[in-house]
């Protein structure tokens, strides 16, 4: 039995909004939500990708061979303007064995730069803690609190891993009235937030209070789907004495945990297309993020571990683990009793929005909330992309349109993208698609619709980047032409200036001579002129004389000819 405080009674009667569409896939929550959260242990090796989210790489601040302590900063966030990254700390003590490329959890299956730590099993804390526990957070300035959250490398743990400090700093400027805490956990199979709320409700509430204090919000609404009654109960118990924090049970429907969808349910407000919740005075955070904020501020522990659901019919004992960041999926599977014959696929995230990994020797990152080891058949029931059945033509049944939580027209998007008419797809608000997979789920023709949208979104992004690059190239080319033109002009000007200078010198010299009245000079000039005239005259006379008397050479020739003739006659 629990006693309800007045605010919770209001919650019972609060009129909830609904969003358009949504589906009820098989949720499989019972598979993994029974056992308590267990510490997964320290694996032999931890691999920490330098980039754990969209944005830029963190910059490593340790060297190969260096010993690191638990909680020591090993890569600090990128300080460049506009760079989006978060601090990374050593999850346990050990030696940095390499900073090199390693496979990371990414749909591409590509490698990226990682810090690899060989653990020593001692789990030794750093003698000088980078983050000291803050007892009473209300006494220290808000900026210091924010700095702490940044130091601790906290990112949104709901899936996107957006750096929390950046999000909170952005919200400080806009007036936030309501903090939305996302405990919906609508994706099938995943129960990590459920277990966390059951076991750590007081800590979560404490974290929520820190955020409320930071952004000066008046109230907090915690939305939890009604398929987690234990979590709702635990959270309500923890908020008995809080008048401004309200736990709200919301109907179970996928994707109620989408940011915009949850806001619609809890407040009835719709975040406009392309807009942010902060424009409506709202800020949303995941429950796990609130918990890690509590850990960072009150306990002084940076984000070095998180709760992950290891589930699916591919593992023997599906359950939730507290996992050090950088642990491999293979190690997690071992901890969950090992994989079974049914483990055909490894999905990071849930079956609806997660992506398949090709290998289990891949580390978990801050954004990993679930490791789903599952058979193809089980996966097929929620995602046709894994279906072995052939895709059928779209029959324009419109089912996808009925379930789209973003109010889009998935079938139209599909046709335009198939025809590579991305501009049309854009006009149909492709950017509002949240990749939830409801459309693919209901598609009777098994068309992997979301794959088309993902393809189109990336393609559009690439086109935008190419356009930006083209603009830069144009600028550079125009500058090159301008530079060549300028250089030519400058050269011409220099030449002209030089010429003018020479002429001026000559003129000045002549003037000087004239001024000094140097008659000898003029006399010399006249005598020179006379000499030339005389020379010309002599040359003329000579010429005339030459013309009058025939040249000697020709005379000689003629006489020679005559002589020859004589000889011929004689012979």
């Amino acid at each position: 039995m629990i006693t309800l405080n007045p605010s919770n009674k209001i919650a019972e009667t609060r009129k909830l909004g609904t969003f358009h569409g949504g589906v009820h896939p098989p949720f499989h929550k019972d598979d993994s939500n029974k056992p308590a959260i267990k510490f997964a242990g320290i694996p032999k090796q931890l691999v920490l990708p330098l980039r754990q989210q969209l944005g830029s790489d963190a910059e490593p601040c340790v060297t190969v061979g260096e010993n690191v302590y638990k909680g020591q900063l090993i890569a600090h966030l990128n300080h460049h303007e506009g760079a989006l990254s978060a601090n990374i700390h050593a999850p346990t003590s050990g030696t940095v064995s390499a900073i090199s490329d390693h496979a990371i959890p990414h749909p591409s299956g590509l490698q990226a730069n990682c810090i690899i730590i060989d653990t020593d099993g001692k789990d030794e804390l750093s003698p000088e803690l980078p983050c000291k526990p803050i007892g009473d957070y209300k006494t220290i300035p808000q900026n210091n609190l924010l700095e702490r959250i940044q130091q601790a490398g906290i990112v949104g743990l709901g899936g996107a891993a957006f750096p929390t400090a950046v999000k909170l700093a952005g919200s400080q400027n806009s007036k936030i009235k309501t903090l939305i805490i996302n405990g919906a956990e609508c994706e099938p199979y995943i129960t990590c937030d459920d277990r966390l709320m059951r076991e750590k409700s007081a800590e979560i509430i404490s974290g929520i209070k820190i955020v409320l204090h930071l952004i000066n919000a008046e109230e907090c609404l915690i939305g939890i789907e009604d398929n987690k009654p234990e979590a709702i109960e635990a959270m309500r118990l923890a908020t008995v004495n809080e008048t401004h924090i309200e736990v709200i049970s919301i109907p179970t429907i996928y994707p109620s945990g989408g940011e915009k969808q949850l806001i619609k349910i809890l407040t009835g407000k719709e975040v406009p297309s392309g807009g942010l919740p902060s424009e409506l005075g709202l800020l949303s955070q995941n429950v796990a993020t609130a918990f890690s904020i509590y850990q960072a501020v009150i306990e002084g522990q940076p984000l070095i571990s998180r709760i992950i659901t290891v589930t699916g019919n591919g593992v023997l004992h599906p359950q939730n683990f507290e996992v050090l960041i950088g642990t491999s999926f293979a190690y997690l599977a071992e901890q969950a009793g090992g994989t079974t014959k049914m483990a055909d696929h490894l999905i990071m995230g849930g079956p609806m929005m997660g992506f398949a990994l090709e290998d289990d020797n891949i580390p978990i990152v801050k954004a990993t909330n679930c490791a789903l080891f599952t058979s193809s058949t089980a996966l097929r029931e929620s995602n046709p992309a894994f279906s072995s059945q052939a895709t059928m033509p779209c029959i324009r049944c419109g089912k996808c349109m009925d379930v789209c939580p973003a109010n889009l027209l998935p079938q139209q998007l599909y046709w335009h993208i198939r025809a590579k008419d991305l501009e049309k797809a854009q006009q149909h608000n492709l950017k509002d698609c949240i990749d939830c997979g409801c459309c693919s789920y209901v598609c009777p023709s098994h068309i992997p619709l979301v794959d088309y949208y993902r393809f189109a979104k990336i393609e559009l992004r690439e086109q935008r980047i190419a356009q930006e690059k083209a603009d830069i190239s144009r600028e550079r080319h125009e500058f090159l032409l301008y530079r060549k033109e300028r250089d030519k002009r400058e050269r011409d000007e220099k030449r002209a200036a030089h010429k003018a200078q020479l002429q001026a010198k000559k003129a000045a010299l002549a003037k000087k001579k004239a001024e000094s009245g140097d008659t000898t000079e003029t006399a010399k000039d006249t005598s020179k002129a006379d000499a030339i005239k005389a020379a010309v005259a002599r040359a003329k006379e000579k010429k005339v004389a030459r013309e009058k008397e025939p040249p000697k050479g020709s005379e000689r020739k003629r006489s020679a000819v005559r002589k020859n003739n004589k000889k011929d006659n004689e012979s």
Partner: protein
Amino acid sequence: MTILTAVLILVGLSTVFGLILGYASVRFKVDGDPLADKVDSLLPQTQCGQCTFPGCRPYAEAIAKGEAPINQCPPGGETTMLALADLLDVEPLALNEEDIKESDMPEVAIIVEEDCIGCTLCIQACPVDAIVGAAKMMHTVIESECTGCELCLPPCPVDCIIMKPLDTTIDNWKWKQPVATEKTYPIIPIALESEAK
């Protein structure tokens, strides 16, 4: 008399409007060709000259005047051609067969540094100033600025410049377009159990 008034009024009006229009045409004169600007903004700005024009701008001007077909830009490929067709409201044209590239990864020029003799010929050829170096010093390409136009290849006396496609990283990796694998099967009814629940 009435006719005269009417004529006078009309003459007066046309004079006034003529003056206004004349003033406006001087005051609001658009320099350059706005259509050429629009076309230019769609071209990939590699300045490679493969369209036979000396750079993107001259090609854009030729297109705007209707003197050049829209399918002469190999770096832009089909996307650019379709965008141009859209802008100019003309029928799309097929690309020349030899211009269709196998990989859509952009290429960049790389100078093999051991072989470079520092002749500066490639620097002069680069349309976007993306090569740095000095006489008798080794040259290198600024990869992020290189447009892959290949204009630096012919002038190089020692053939030390190679074209290399960019590596696929998580930054420029793309989802593949799903292949439509539809076959004409008899349609099998599919029960959606979960929906029924």
